[in-house]
Structure formats: structure tokens, C-alpha cells
């Protein structure tokens, strides 16, 4: 007799697996590295402080180390759909939970300082208004 479909126990296992995979997708971000040793790398999203695009390289600043990738900010932004991430400038995506304070950079932009790193990001004046309207 050929069995079609799944019995209850198997369905339960599959559902569990899908749930776990979804959880992994939600918690971690996979990106293409520039290293020849490993093509892809996973990092926890909640450890990302900000991401910066400089020239043809993107730098991911985390609480531990910095990673580089050729992937564009738009590509990475699609993987960071959580509310925690905000496109503060055309060259920056920031994790709002690490934002410490701001300082005036130019007439139309601010520097963003973070907890756990001395590196800074930028936020345009229009984005500052959007940031305040969107959060809290």
C-alpha cells in the first residue's frame, strides 16, 4: 500500500522544522563574503550596529567585528525587514537600538553615535523627520 501525505507525527516534525527555520531566518542574516575561504557567512541581526556602503564595498559593523561584502545596501535591506533597522541615509542602514545620540555634521545631515562602537553613521535631515515619525 502506498502512503500518500504525512501522518500526524511527521506533520508535527515538519511544522517544527519550518518554525525553527523561520526563526533562524528571522534571527540571522546571511551575506556573501569577500573571502575566498568562505562564500557566505551568518551573523545575528541583533548584533548588527550599522551597515555602510563605501564605493563598491559594504561594511557591516557589529558588536564583535566588522565584515565586508560586495552586496549592495538595497540587497541587505531586503533581509533586514524588522522595524529595528532604518535606512538613515543612502549609504547607511542603522540598528535603532544602538543609537546613542546625534551631532550636527552639515546643514542637511547629522552624525549618529552608537553604543558599543566608536564608528559613526550619517542621517539626513529628511530621514531624521521620518525616524521621529516612525518610532516611539
Amino acid at each position, binding site marked *: 500500500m502506498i502512503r500518500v501525505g504525512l501522518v500526524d507525527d511527521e506533520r508535527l516534525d515538519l511544522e517544527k522544522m519550518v518554525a525553527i527555520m523561520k526563526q533562524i531566518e528571522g534571527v540571522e542574516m546571511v551575506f556573501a563574503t569577500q573571502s575566498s575561504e568562505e562564500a557566505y557567512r551568518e551573523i545575528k541581526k541583533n548584533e548588527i550596529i550599522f551597515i555602510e556602503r563605501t564605493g563598491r564595498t559594504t561594511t557591516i559593523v557589529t558588536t564583535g567585528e566588522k565584515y565586508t561584502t560586495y552586496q549592495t545596501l538595497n540587497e541587505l535591506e531586503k533581509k533586514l525587514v524588522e522595524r529595528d533597522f532604518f535606512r538613515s541615509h543612502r549609504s547607511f542602514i542603522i540598528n*535603532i*537600538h544602538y*543609537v*546613542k*545620540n*546625534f*551631532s*550636527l555634521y552639515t546643514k542637511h545631515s*547629522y552624525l*549618529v*553615535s552608537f553604543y558599543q562602537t566608536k564608528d559613526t553613521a550619517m542621517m539626513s535631515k529628511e530621514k*531624521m*523627520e521620518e525616524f*521621529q*515619525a516612525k*518610532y*516611539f
Partner: protein
Amino acid sequence: MLMDNLLIGLAFALLVSSLGWFILQTIRWRKRARALEHTNRLLLDQQIHMEQMINEIRSERHDFIKHMRVIENLARQQERGILDQYLDELNGELQRINVLNRGEKAHMASLLKHVLEACRHDHVQVRYELEVPLSALPMGLVDQTKLVGNLLENALEAACRYAQQHHQAQIEVFTSVRSGLYLLEVRNSTLPIPREIVDALFKQPVPSSKAGSANGWKHGIGTHVIAETVKKHQGTLDFRYQFPWMTVKVKIPLFQSMIHNGV
């Protein structure tokens, strides 16, 4: 002849435009004068509140030795029940001022105390949930007074009017810092507000709702001053009116150059 007409026309146009410019400038300066007069009144009021608070703290210090003697006597006489009651009452009195002083500078502590006492007098309940002191608002002391003073004054006025009709009212003040933004929220009971007033709130001076007020603009200018102060510090202001509640939420970015102690 044609030249003469052209010159007269030109002179007339110049005169009209000068007059228009003069009227616009007058309106602008009148508005500014009102805002300055309002701020001046707030600062003078605050000075009075600060002096009252200093006197109260002085009298507390003055009474300290007397309280110590009473406690000593009660302990000697082994009047445990009365001693406990006395200590509870004394602790309550001290806490009343201490809560307001926690992390606050004198100008904000005295303002909070003034609101608390005015509310007690008018049967309005007050709840302060200040995760960060109001004195840590990222702006100068005068602007802090302009912003918080006007917000609390408006809330107090509205809540008192509500309490007169409903015998109870509430004011709640919340502060916190999240992601580089200072968040200040003031929520108060209010009587129904006409739609045209709600639409104009924080956009332009609105007429005062204070009954019998001869110089209504003095009160209506408060919301305008709040909006201007928030704008000056690159912040945003949002309000929600849903009878019987009015909630005003202010967000001010924490700029390194303006960060004071306490954040």
C-alpha cells in the same frame, strides 16, 4: 504724459508693497512680542515657585532637630504604635519633596511641585513617571521652562476645568530616552474641544478657552510657544485628542552639544 502715468503707477505700486511689507512685519513682531511676554511670565512664575520650594526645604531642615527629639522621646517611652505612625507621616512628608528632587534641577523640581500642589487643590490626580529627569531635556534651561512649563500649564488648566464638572481628573507625565531621542508625553483629562480648535492646535495661537478671560491670547499663545520650541530643537510634536483625553507627545533628538547630566 505716458511717462508721467508710468511713474505714478510705479510710485503707487511701491507704496502699496511698502505698506504690505510694513503690515506683515507688524504682525510678525506682535506675535513675537506676545510669545516673549508669555515666556517672561512663565519665568517669573517659576522664580516664585523656586523660592517657595527653597523655603519649604529650609523649614524641613529647621524642623529636623525637633523631629529627632520627638522620635527619641517616643522611643524612650516605648510608645511603639505612635512612633511607627509618626515615622510614617514624617517619611511621607520627606518623600513628597524628595521624589520631585530626584535628578531634577531646581527650575524643574519647583515646576513639578507647583503642578502637584495645584492639582491637589483642584482634585486632580497626578502621576509622574520620569525615567529621565525633565532637567535632562536636550535644550537650555529657558527652553526647558518654555516647553515643560507650557505643556504642564495647559494640562493643568484643562484638567481643572474637567474636574470642576466631573469632580475628578488626571494628569500623567512620562519621560524616557530611546534610540537617541528624548521622549516626553503629557496626558490629561479635558472637556470636549471644538474641532476648529483641535485643527489649529500647535499651528497658530488659538483663543483661550478660559471663561471670562479678557486677554485670551496670553493663554492661547502657550501651544504656539511649545511648537516653536520643539521645532527649534529639531524635534517633532504629535498630539491625540480622544475625549476625555488629550495626549501630547514630544520627541527631541539628543545632540551631543546639548546633553546635560542625567541622560
